[in-house]
């Protein structure tokens, strides 16, 4: 018999790997290269190379890999699923292994090969919502302006870690950017990014399972980035192995499993012939012909502000700096509002040197001008302002509005697509009326196009330009980057050209903005006079796609990328008092110094990581803080918050020694409201009722390895930590009942809890191994009916405490219902009191609406405090909802907590009080809020109120939230002024 050679070809999302083995399993050939999506060509070349190297074309062959499946199907070749192939190779090469962690370009996997010492394959792959992959690391490296290898080297020298969300690129960026802008060290940020990848892998993939035993690391990122491996080692508390040939395990496994006979030369020919077809979903070309493109260009060239670099200019000048998330934009404007000089630079994580350069340059170039005003805006506005003594600063949304008015006085809609964010504002009666920012799960920003361009080997400008001439753009839909990655992958597989992919991406950026961020049903809903801006719109392809999608021509200023800075300059002019600006002059710049120090604030339990920037002359800027405490800036902070009040009330339910022993209550989800009830009930029965500790990041991590669904909401996921910490503290009984129904407040058609709140105890019961060591009471109870409650709770408790008498239960229940209503009553009365006080003092009031568990500082990330610092009284939805009678809404109104949202919205809408507004907090992954948010919005808008929604998840940085809230307050001030 001939010696048979086996060949495995692994086509991943970005790379191509091949392995050939002889009949003893010895390695004859291995090769690794990036395919830049030219899969068929590169694969054919590789097959020929194999045949040439091993000296024969007749082999047994199989394809594997995420991008290999489609090709295999199309050509009718044998396919081996890549995880299965990995396991095959791991077993044959390494023998007994317990766990394999494999990260790839776009996928992350954990393979559990054993279970309690028994062979049993269980695989966890990243789902639809996936960060923590190679692409994520690449994206983050781009953000730091380094290569992934450099990122690794930086991470080796870290001193401290920041918490960075890695579920989604958008999140992570919103964590990282402010860190950079505030001057955090790149080394620390780099290490934090890698740690985030590790946490994501553990939280998202390990779910209920412990990673232990003999652990193997595979795949590109883990092979090339030793610091990523040490991160895993550190966090898992073990030492994993990264074997030789760690990139080739999939290919090797495919080779070992290969059983269909092929001839490589013939197969290569088949691949040559498999000319990319044109059978993908497509949309309309951007331009029908060259004339159409020229007409388009001419039309847009008319919207201009001229830049005249006049060295002799001797009048007043106004400086505007937009320290954005990825770029710093600066404009020096003349008295006549023409531009003298501009700058548009990537900020590389720190805007300070760039602004310094800019100032030095303009002082040199225009020696005769006088800066009469300087304003900063954008993420880094505070830092720039304090570093260079600017006169003023303004929230970026207002800066954009100011600039847009200059080009289109009747502007009623502005859409700004920048590097990391999409901002849209609707303008009604001359004030900003409605603000949309991209939230947690929306992509489609400039950096997204850039990342794709880079991945495919093009510069952004070149890449976008190619889309102009696309004849058949790929229809990629409108969702998050991770989805988009696989859509692009699919399109490549289906043979789409670069031109058509480029155009398709431009269209998807636009669709994402319109349907996902703004959620308009059609173009008319936006407005009649639309100004588009932000660097992304400088791409004609994106601009054209936008006009096509909304069916209307729009205004794109020639300085689309500089509008924030230009608006800031206009604002500086408006605010100028006539004298000289306070901005550092030439001498000031010469003495300029900047030092950064990191400390941990111990002002409160948040323990924020602060970056302290010290400038010459003792000017300081402190970043990273959640509250104003460390900055000792008194400002106009208001200390009236119902959130504080409710937290105090709940903290008052302390443990009292009792004859029946300890009973633990996990302080999450519905216990934020039912604690008074159950605490009283069990205390009366003689239990010592122990609350789990206040939520924190580390409490979350305590239970994160037992989370069974990574897309559940953060408040639910926190429950695992609460339960674990109760068990760890030695509590032997935990009470966490299933409650299909909540209390009936009579305001809706039913009084359900949401499915997650109702049944999460079931998830805890079966997914947390330690729960089996204690007494876990998760019975189905009923609290809306006292009689029935007594029956059910008796059935729940009697098996464990047969001595509890009916009378005892009755008395305890009486007390519990009494306490519950007394608690609500206190909240209601406090709400009334704060409303009254606010009115007396003329203070603005924000109804911060959510669920009772949004009280948790780890869930709301201090948004309540932030609002207080912005000078408003904070009142929770439950404190005013009771004032409304039952009323009809346009949704099925059958959840107790959600019913309160509608009532609170109605109260605000009908108050006719411009100082009373509502902000809704929405937990990422909350399915019910997809329903409530639209309804709350429409109730508010019927009353002429601005709707503001804040999405919250594990993110800890409040930068974006702050912009949103400041914009709201700015808009309210403007509205107040207009009225």
């Amino acid at each position, binding site marked *: 018999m001939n010696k048979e050679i086996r060949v495995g070809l692994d086509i991943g999302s970005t790379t191509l790997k091949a392995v050939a083995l002889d009949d003893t399993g010895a390695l004859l050939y291995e090769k690794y290269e990036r395919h830049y999506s030219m899969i068929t060509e590169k694969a054919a070349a590789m097959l020929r190379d194999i045949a040439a190297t091993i000296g024969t074309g007749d082999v047994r062959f199989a394809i594997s890999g995420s991008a290999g499946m489609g090709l295999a199907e199309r050509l009718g070749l044998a396919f081996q699923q890549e995880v299965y192939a990995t396991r095959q190779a791991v077993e044959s090469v390494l023998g007994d292994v317990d766990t394999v962690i494999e990260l790839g370009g776009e996928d992350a996997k954990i393979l559990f090969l054993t279970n309690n010492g028994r062979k049993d394959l269980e695989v966890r792959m990243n789902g639809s919502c996936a960060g923590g992959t190679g692409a994520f690391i690449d994206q983050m490296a781009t953000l730091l302006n380094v290569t992934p290898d450099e990122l690794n080297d930086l991470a080796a020298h870290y001193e401290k870690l920041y918490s960075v969300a890695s579920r989604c690129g958008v999140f992570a960026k919103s964590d990282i950017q402010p860190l950079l802008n505030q001057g955090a060290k790149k080394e620390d940020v780099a290490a934090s990014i890698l740690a985030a990848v590790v946490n994501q892998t553990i939280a998202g993939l390990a*779910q209920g399972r412990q990673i232990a035993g003999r652990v193997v690391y595979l795949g590109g990122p883990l092979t090339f980035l030793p610091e990523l491996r040490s991160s895993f080692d550190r966090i898992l508390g073990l030492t994993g192995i990264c074997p030789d040939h760690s990139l080739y395990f999939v290919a090797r496994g495919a080779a070992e499993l290969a059983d269909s006979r092929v001839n490589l030369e013939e197969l290569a020919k088949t691949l040559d012939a498999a000319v990319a077809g044109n059978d993908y979903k497509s949309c309309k070309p951007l331009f029908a012909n060259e004339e159409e493109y020229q007409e388009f260009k001419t039309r847009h060239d008319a919207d201009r502000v001229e830049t005249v670099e006049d060295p002799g200019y001797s009048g007043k000048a106004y400086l505007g700096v937009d320290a954005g998330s990825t770029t710093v934009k600066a404009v020096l404007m003349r008295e006549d509002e023409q531009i003298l000089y501009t700058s548009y630079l990537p900020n590389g994580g720190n805007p300070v040197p760039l602004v310094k350069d800019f100032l030095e340059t303009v002082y040199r170039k225009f020696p005769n001008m006088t800066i009469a005003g300087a304003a900063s805006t954008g993420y880094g506005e505070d830092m720039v302002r304090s570093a260079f003594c600017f006169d003023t600063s303004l929230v970026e949304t207002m800066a954009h509005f100011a600039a847009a008015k200059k080009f289109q006085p009747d502007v009623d809609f502005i859409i700004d697509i920048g590097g990391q964010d999409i901002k849209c504002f609707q303008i009604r009666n001359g004030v900003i009326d409605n603000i949309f920012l991209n939230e947690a799960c929306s992509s489609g920003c400039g950096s997204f196009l850039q990342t794709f361009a880079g991945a495919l080997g093009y510069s952004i400008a070149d890449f976008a330009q190619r889309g102009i001439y696309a004849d058949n753009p790929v229809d990629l839909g409108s969702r998050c980057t991770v989805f988009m990655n696989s859509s692009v992958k699919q399109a490549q597989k289906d043979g789409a050209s670069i031109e058509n992919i480029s155009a398709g991406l431009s269209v998807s950026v636009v669709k994402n903005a319109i349907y*996902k961020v703004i959620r308009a049903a059609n173009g008319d809903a936006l407005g009649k006079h639309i100004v588009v801006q932000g660097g992304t719109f400088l791409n004609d392809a994106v601009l054209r796609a936008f006009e096509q999608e909304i069916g209307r021509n729009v205004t794109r200023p020639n300085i689309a990328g500089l509008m924030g800075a230009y608006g800031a300059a206009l604002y500086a002019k408006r605010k100028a008092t006539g004298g000289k600006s306070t901005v550092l002059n030439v001498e000031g710049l010469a003495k300029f110094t900047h030092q950064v120090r990191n400390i941990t604030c111990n002002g409160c339990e948040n323990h924020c990581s602060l970056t302290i920037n010290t400038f010459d002359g003792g000017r300081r800027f402190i970043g990273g803080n959640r509250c104003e405490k460390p900055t000792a800036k008194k400002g106009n902070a208001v200390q009236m918050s119902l959130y504080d009040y409710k937290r105090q009330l709940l903290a008052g339910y302390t443990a009292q020694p009792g004859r029946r022993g300890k009973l633990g209550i996990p302080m999450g989800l519905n216990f934020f409201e039912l604690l008074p009830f159950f605490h009283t009930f069990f205390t009366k029965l003689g239990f010592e009722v122990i609350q789990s500790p206040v939520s924190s990041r580390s409490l979350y991590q305590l239970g994160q390895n037992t989370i069974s669904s990574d897309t559940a909401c953060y408040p639910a996921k926190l429950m695992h930590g609460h339960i674990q910490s109760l068990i760890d503290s030695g509590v032997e009984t935990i009470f966490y009942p299933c409650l299909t*129904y909540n209390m009936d407040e009579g305001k809706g058609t039913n009084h359900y809890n949401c499915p997650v709140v109702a049944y999460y105890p079931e998830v805890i019961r079966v997914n947390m191994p330690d729960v089996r060591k204690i007494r876990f009471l998760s019975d189905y109870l009923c609290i809306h009916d006292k009689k029935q409650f007594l029956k059910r709770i008796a059935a729940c408790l009697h098996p464990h405490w047969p001595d509890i008498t009916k009378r005892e239960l009755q008395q305890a229940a009486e007390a519990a219902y009494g306490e519950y209503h007394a608690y609500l009553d206190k909240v209601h009365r406090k709400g009334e009191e704060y409303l009254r006080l606010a009115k007396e003092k003329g203070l603005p009031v924000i109804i911060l609406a959510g669920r009772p568990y949004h009280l948790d500082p780890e869930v709301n990330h201090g948004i309540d405090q932030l609002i207080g610092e912005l000078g408003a009284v904070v009142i929770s939805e439950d404190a005013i909802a009771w004032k409304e009678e039952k009323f*009809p809404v346009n949704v099925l109104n059958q959840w107790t907590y959600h019913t309160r949202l509608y009532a609170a919205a109605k109260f605000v809408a009908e108050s006719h009080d411009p100082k009373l507004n509502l902000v809704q907090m929405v937990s990422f992954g909350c399915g019910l809020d*997809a*329903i409530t948010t639209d309804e709350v919005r429409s109730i508010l808008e019927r009353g002429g109120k601005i709707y503001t929604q804040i999405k919250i998840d594990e993110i800890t940085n409040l930068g974006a939230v702050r912009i949103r809230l400041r914009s709201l307050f700015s808009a309210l001030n403007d509205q107040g002024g207009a009225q």
Partner: protein
Amino acid sequence: MSGPKFTEVMKKDYTILIPDMTTIHFKFLAHIFRSYGYNVEILYNQGQEVVDEGLKYVHNDTCYPALLCIGQMMDALHSGKYDVHKTALLLSQTGGGCRASNYVCLLRKALDKAGFDFVPVLSLNFAGLDENAVPFTIPMVIKAMMAVIYGDTLMLLRNQVIPYEVEKGAADRLTEEWTARLLSNFRSTQLLSRRTLRRNLNAIAADFAKIPVRDEQRVKVGVVGEIYVKYAALGNNNLEQFLYEQGCETMVPGLYDFIMYTMQNSLEDDALYGNSKWKHFLHVQIVKFLNGIRNEMRKAAMDHGFTAPSEFSHLLDLAASVIGRGCKMGEGWLLSGEMMELAELGYANIITVQPFGCLPNHIVAKGMARTVKEKCPQANIVAIDYDPGATRVNQENRIKLMLSIARENLKQQEQEPALV
């Protein structure tokens, strides 16, 4: 819910559009509607336009089924095929604690947004939720139950024959034949008779048993999940066809069990939240009656050598071994119970399908997968999420992994013949 009412007068010249879900069942149901004077039409439109219409008019974070159903309806209204002033729409509404109860409201909102505020919406529910609920008579309900049991039987038998049939297309042809035959009978009140049911089911099973099949071992896959995504090919990227092409035999637990589940929940509710003795007695009788009909299907299938769903009481026990039966939102305990049932019936390779972000399935599907595996070590479970952004490649890749393991398990079984 506001919006125009569907009045008796409209029955005459209005077309009522219903999005498809389980094709066989819906054909029967449409037929019953027609026999009561409703001029209904099932929507089969699909493709990107449907998704786009959904994205346009429904909050994108809402569950995928809502997006697709409403997308289908909006697409139909915009197609020009129907006189929009003579068209009404019908959706079902369970009134449970899952957000799916809101579909009718979401549809109403979408209609208003699109300028179709004059189009009436009918709600198919038994919870008295909406003033526009379809009026039901008891015979109509019973006929509907019969329709569902016929649909389930055809689906069950077809799935067990099709991967093994010698002559390709035989099972599909027989399914169509029987569908046509039954449809021509539905008008008659005979359908209300248990004896007719028994006779028909037996005849169906006998016919399927006669189809020549090859004797071979196939990977057996069970599909559980959110009801729409589980059944509707539009919702699950044609999962059944994919599994067939991969050479699997598929078992999809029937729609009838979902009805049993909702009725059983009344019993559970009586115990948990209290009810009058009389009403409880009524609930017991209804469940008994429904179970009787279900047993006819089981018997017919088993008598002809097919695998039938478990005895309902056993399914209840299986569910209770993993999750509390008070868990009643979405597919609730039924879904967890079905995973156990499938594993026991030999369909241990289980796909749980759900729309992305499905709240109940965080609990009853993903949350219970671990404990099901502990109790049935042979269980090989994969969860697949569906939404407008998820691509087929990813979904199929994950299923293929599950199938690779399934094939390996099958090979092992063949090598070491069962000890029993």
